[in-house]
């Protein structure tokens, strides 16, 4: 597969390491009251869609950017590629 890196352009998927659902960006607050169930959901419950899926890929043999790749798991079409850091910020994550 070819992943169109937002900075570097088309890169072979063999340069990347796969992590999983991009929802992993949305980590619950560990100091919040009763955060156990939220962490259970975060760590264990994943959707496994046949179709579009937002996933985390790490450009390990490249520029070390984490990317959010929106990919169709049926056709392998890649719909969009974003820097995960930008996605995280847009989701309200900060410090």
């Amino acid at each position, binding site marked *: 597969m070819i992943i169109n890196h937002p*900075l*570097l352009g088309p890169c*072979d998927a*063999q*340069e990347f390491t796969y992590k999983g659902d991009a929802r992993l960006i949305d980590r619950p607050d560990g100091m919040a009251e009763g955060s156990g169930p939220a962490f259970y959901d975060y760590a264990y419950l994943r959707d496994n869609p046949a179709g579009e899926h937002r996933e985390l890929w790490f450009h*390990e*043999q*490249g*520029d*070390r*950017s984490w990317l959010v790749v929106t990919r169709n798991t049926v056709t392998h079409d890649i719909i969009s590629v974003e*820097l995960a850091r930008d996605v995280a910020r847009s989701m309200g994550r900060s410090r």
Partner: protein
Amino acid sequence: MHDLAPMTALGASEPRTDTIGPIRITEAPDWALASVAARLGQEATCQTALRKLLGTPAPGVAAQASGPVLSAFWIGPHIWMFEAPYATHPDLAQQVKAACADTASVTDQTGAWVRFELTGRDLPRLMERLCNLDMGAMQAGHARRSVIEHLGCYVIRHEDSITLYGPRSSAQTLHHALITAARSVF
């Protein structure tokens, strides 16, 4: 001056050179390296400091730039690798840190890499057996990280040569791959 004798990454006191067909593969141990990562919110001031240090703007994405003394190449968002002759800059990291002060995090990378200079004609035909970069389309001044023989390596394209950085501990593996691939072509 201290009295510890350096050893090259290939395990000798002198760097090694191999000539295969039209290609020359030279180990180049005489380079100091330092990585520079701009601190959060300091990107602009860091770049100003780097431009002053380098004598030219810090290179953009996937680019390499040479100043009068130092040169640098892009290795990630707001991260660069600076290069200088080791003989004159054994303390490159400290010099870069002094120039950037609190605008950047600087790390000595001299010992982390083995550097090979590849010269001669038909270099793309050698490289196409080693990594997935499109050397035919790669112009002088381009710098990319890619996989060679399962190793993360930096490939820097110059007008008539290619600079290759690979992990120092695997210098022998990388050298073996270069030699084997060269013999396979020429």
